[in-house]
């Protein structure tokens, strides 16, 4: 009889649920995909419902529920912070304390979770246990990894107290080796700059990273002198006089402004050289800390492989630097490295404690199923949706569909690719993706402006056939989850004469034979696609290569700016019709934009989706 453990992360940012069967992740999804509210932090009722449906299980069949952090310990940290900041934290004290205390307060999160699960009416609710926030991250990084033993590093904003932890993973055990505690946090340092540069904390960090290659790290020394003291072993200490997050709801204030040449950039305001340089500077410091932490991880464990999780592990540029540095033979990064992945990690930690094994070790594969752990829709379900709505479509054999899509892509068309189970984690990996031809210099702007409706300073990510990756990128290992940045191979780079372009116009200077996925520093955020990980996607890339000689496609998430990635056929069709995507491939069905009626809907959806 197999044992199921349900993991839950909620009430902070990007809630999620996951089910682990005998130690293997079998279903996982973020609530935002169902509620259609980006980074939805409410109880993940629909995600739990989906996970149970996927297994045909009720809550009675689940042996334990694991919550991804310890609410009591977190409250003690919050209280210590407020008291520690007295007498300057009165408003924040008045706002925060009532949210924790009282009936249904955050201190009683486990009772609240029990109540929520009971109200799903899906059977008797088993015992609920809390794991530590960083233990959940560490478990999500190590247990599904392909390694028998490894060093494990978790770096994020903050959970309870820990902001950085080092572990030694062996078999089904994780041993804690050390930690760095709040308020000293690499994640919060990065978030402070994200906030100061006018982006949203907890989601704009990715933009700041994308901005860094435009800048010169001229503030890096200042950051090292004033903000963060970094020891040779990678541990660090922040000077809290420059940060506001102990006192209130913002990250930075006057002291930061004085240090970095004036007030913060307003959201959506113009981007100036200062923001480029700030981004480059904090990125450089982050990389320096991560490299030192990685070296310490190697020394303390003697292991040759490293597993990463926590929000900072989504910094694929820093990850790429660790690979480049050759500190470890190989890296494995949990695709849901942020707090959504805590749901999976908490469940894994409990499963291992209950005696589950790690049977995938030795096969060379990880246990994440390519991160395709979300809902799939059968051809029957898709057909029912299309017929019900009277939507024009063609049903094709799989081989013909792949051929038609490859031909359309080679012809410069933008294609919505809706196949297989939805990805778990923030990136689209070829299950809910928008695809295009990376050789087309106009493709980057075309997708950005006409499809995503967003600013265009970031290039897209390339998906490349794993077997051809080395021909195109300087990457010494696989990157199945798009969490490693590498340089475009010299043979694919083009000579660049000084075009006189500055700022974000630099992105339009062609630097390689795949300009749509090449950043201004010739780097790319690579996803390597193997036949084992995602066979259908691999076939499409192969067909595109057969036609064009190029084994690379532009891959960006299937959504418009500010909206969660599409989940259902309805979400996909709506996004297809709202944008200039030319073709939609859903299961074995192909939809052409030219055959669709004019799209009309009530209200202006663009004003209804909040900007990210």
């Amino acid at each position, binding site marked *: 009889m197999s044992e199921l453990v349900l993991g839950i992360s909620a009430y902070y940012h990007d809630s999620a649920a996951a089910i682990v069967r005998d130690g293997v992740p079998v279903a996982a999804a973020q609530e935002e995909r169902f509620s259609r509210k980006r980074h939805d932090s409410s109880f993940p009722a629909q995600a739990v419902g989906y996970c149970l449906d996927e297994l045909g299980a009720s809550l009675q069949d689940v042996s334990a529920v694991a919550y991804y952090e310890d609410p009591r310990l977190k409250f003690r940290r919050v209280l*210590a912070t407020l*008291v520690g900041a007295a*007498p300057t934290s009165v408003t924040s*004290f008045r706002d925060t304390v*009532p949210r924790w*205390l009282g009936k249904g307060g955050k201190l009683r999160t486990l009772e609240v979770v029990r109540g929520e699960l009971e109200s799903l009416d899906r059977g008797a609710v088993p015992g609920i246990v809390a794991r530590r926030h960083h233990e959940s991250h560490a478990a999500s990084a190590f247990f599904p990894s392909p390694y028998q033993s490894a060093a494990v590093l978790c770096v994020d904003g903050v959970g309870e107290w820990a902001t950085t932890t080092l572990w030694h993973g062996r078999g089904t055990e994780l041993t804690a080796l050390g930690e760095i505690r709040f308020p000293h946090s690499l994640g919060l340092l990065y978030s402070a700059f994200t906030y100061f540069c006018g982006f949203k904390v907890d989601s704009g960090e990715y933009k700041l990273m994308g901005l860094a290659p435009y800048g010169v790290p001229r503030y890096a020394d200042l950051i090292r002198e004033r903000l963060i003291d970094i020891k040779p*072993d990678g541990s*660090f*200490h922040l000077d*809290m006089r420059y940060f506001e997050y102990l006192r209130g709801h913002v990250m930075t204030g006057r002291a930061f402004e004085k240090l970095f040449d004036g007030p913060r950039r307003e959201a959506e305001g113009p981007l100036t050289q200062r923001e480029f340089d700030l981004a480059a500077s904090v990125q450089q410091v982050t990389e320096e800390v991560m490299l030192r932490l990685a070296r310490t991880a190697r020394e303390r464990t003697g292991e040759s492989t490293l597993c990463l999780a926590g929000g900072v592990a989504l910094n694929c540029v820093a990850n790429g630097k660790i690979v480049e540095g050759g500190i470890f033979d190989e890296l494995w990064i949990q695709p849901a490295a942020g707090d959504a992945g805590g749901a999976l990690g908490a469940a894994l930690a409990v499963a291992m404690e209950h005696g589950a094994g790690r049977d995938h070790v030795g096969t060379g594969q990880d246990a994440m199923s390519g991160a395709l752990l979300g809902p799939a829709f059968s051809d029957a379900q898709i057909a029912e949706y299309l017929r019900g709505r009277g939507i024009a479509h063609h049903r094709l054999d799989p081989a013909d569909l792949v051929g038609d899509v490859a031909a359309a892509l080679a012809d410069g068309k933008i294609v919505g690719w809706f196949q297989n189970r939805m990805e778990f984690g923030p990136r689209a990996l070829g299950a809910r993706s928008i695809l295009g031809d990376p050789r087309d210099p106009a493709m980057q702007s075309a997708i950005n402006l006409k499809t995503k409706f967003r600013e265009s300073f970031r290039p897209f990510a390339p998906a490349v056939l794993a077997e051809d990756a080395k021909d195109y990128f300087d990457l010494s290992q696989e990157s199945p989850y798009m969490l490693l940045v590498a340089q475009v191979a010299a043979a694919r780079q083009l000579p660049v004469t000084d075009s006189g372009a500055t700022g974000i116009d630099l992105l339009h200077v062609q630097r390689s034979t795949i300009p749509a996925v090449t950043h201004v520093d010739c780097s790319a955020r690579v996803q390597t696609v193997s036949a084992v990980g995602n066979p259908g996607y691999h076939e499409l890339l192969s067909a595109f290569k057969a036609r064009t000689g190029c084994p690379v496609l532009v891959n960006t998430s299937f959504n418009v700016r500010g909206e969660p990635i599409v989940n259902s056929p309805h979400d996909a069709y709506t996004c297809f019709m709202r944008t200039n995507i030319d073709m939609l491939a859903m299961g074995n069905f192909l939809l052409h934009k030219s055959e669709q009626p004019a799209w009309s809907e009530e209200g202006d959806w663009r004003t209804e989706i909040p900007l990210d």
Partner: protein
Amino acid sequence: MGKILLSVGYFLVATPVGWASRLIHDPLSRRRDRRAQTYWSA
């Protein structure tokens, strides 16, 4: 809980406790120990 009650609690309890605790052990380790070799804690 009323706003006033919370504010009273804050200034009469939280503030003195905060001051005292900072004098004794600096729970958020805000002061930097310049001689420290490392900021890792086990």
